[in-house]
């Protein structure tokens, strides 16, 4: 446990692409109205989807460094040779990745929501669904980052591998958000499926990423 906490603190301290991810998120949100035109009703309707896709793409941005940085400087070998369970290592690193990358986005969502003419209930639903869904994206991303860790141009491949896996989380994240303020649709069923998808991807992600990392040194 000391190891997991130390690794978490180290990775949070190193920061990753947290701030750049936030700027990237901001650029997606500001560029979009230029593309679709100044129709406020349309923006309000597609706003939640845009913010979700923006969050997904921003989280991809620093993902290839998640394990590659440790792979390149020898830290990954040492973590593998230390005798600790790799699943704990993955858990600590993914948790730190979520805190440095997804959490700033979620904090910024209320602010960006106003850019897209979103009402307060929609913004509240977005924060809730992003809180529930982004950990799932982070664990799914860890699979791709671990599988491509030893590939020299893994970054591009990573996006191709990961985006299809993220589709269910995106679908239920957006539909839960829309259901929260569109009247006849119930909010709870899609939200519960979103939570289930996150738990599912956490369990699968931990074990797949850990065994991919173990295989990377072989």
């Amino acid at each position, binding site marked *: 446990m000391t*190891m997991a906490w130390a690794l978490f603190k180290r990775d949070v301290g*190193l920061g990753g692409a947290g701030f750049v991810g936030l700027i990237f998120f901001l650029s997606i949100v500001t560029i979009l109205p230029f593309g679709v035109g100044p129709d406020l009703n349309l923006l309000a309707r597609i706003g939640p989807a845009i913010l979700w896709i923006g969050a997904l793409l921003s989280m991809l941005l620093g993902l290839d460094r998640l394990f590659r940085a440790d792979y390149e*400087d020898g830290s990954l*070998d040492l973590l593998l040779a*230390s*005798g*600790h369970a790799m699943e704990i290592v993955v858990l600590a690193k993914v948790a730190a990745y979520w805190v440095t990358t997804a959490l700033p986005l979620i904090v910024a969502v209320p602010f960006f929501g106003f850019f897209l003419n979103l009402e307060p209930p929609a913004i509240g639903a977005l924060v809730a669904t992003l809180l529930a869904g982004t950990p799932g994206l982070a664990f799914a991303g860890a699979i791709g980052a671990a599988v491509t860790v030893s590939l020299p141009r893994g970054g591009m491949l990573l996006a191709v591998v990961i985006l299809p896996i993220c589709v269910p989380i995106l679908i239920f994240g957006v539909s839960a958000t829309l259901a929260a303020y569109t009247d006849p649709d119930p909010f709870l069923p899609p939200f519960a499926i979103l939570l289930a998808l996150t738990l599912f991807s956490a369990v699968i992600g931990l074990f797949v990423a850990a065994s991919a990392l173990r295989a990377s040194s*072989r």
Partner: protein
Amino acid sequence: MKLTVSDLSCVRGDYRIFDSVGFEVDAGEAVQLTGDNGSGKSSLLRLVCGLLERESGGVSLQGAAPGAEIADLCHYLGHDNGLKAPMTAMENLQFWRAVFGRTGLEALAALRTVGLERIADLPTGYLSAGQKRRVAIARLLVSKRPIWLLDEPTSALDAASENLLGRLVDEHLGAGGLVIAATHMPLPFAIAATIDMSLQRSVPEAAPEPWEYTG
């Protein structure tokens, strides 16, 4: 404590690098692996600490506490130092101390031992190659682990630091530790046995396919 490597082979991809290597290391002994580039010195170290999968043969430990895994008793000093450039030498060592167990020296005391106390608060990105290597050597001191696997331990070190490494290894051996060092350079500490990996090279099973450039 005694480490026995028996009948170990190494296969990388389609190539067998070496076949049935075996030796023993007693407590207080250092074994040197020598050999040409690519003869499998580093691979052997990685096989011992479990970074590479063992195809055949085994590594066993006699006289260790029951239930102790070899991976829990090894310090691996690889080619790469495992240091984060933005973090100071202190922070790096404190991190590895938490990972490998807080059983050895404090981070600052370890840095003092390798003579880097003055630059403890400098980000390791600013250090020279030799200084980084010394920080990595200090990592061996912050956690007590009896088996040291050293891959080219003297690379980038100056003469004084080599002597320092020799003293540290002698102390470790004196305390009942085991050392396996892979290098073709002379080592600054007493060697109980030398294993020439070039002589262990396996006979190719078949001539490899000629590689054609079709680009």
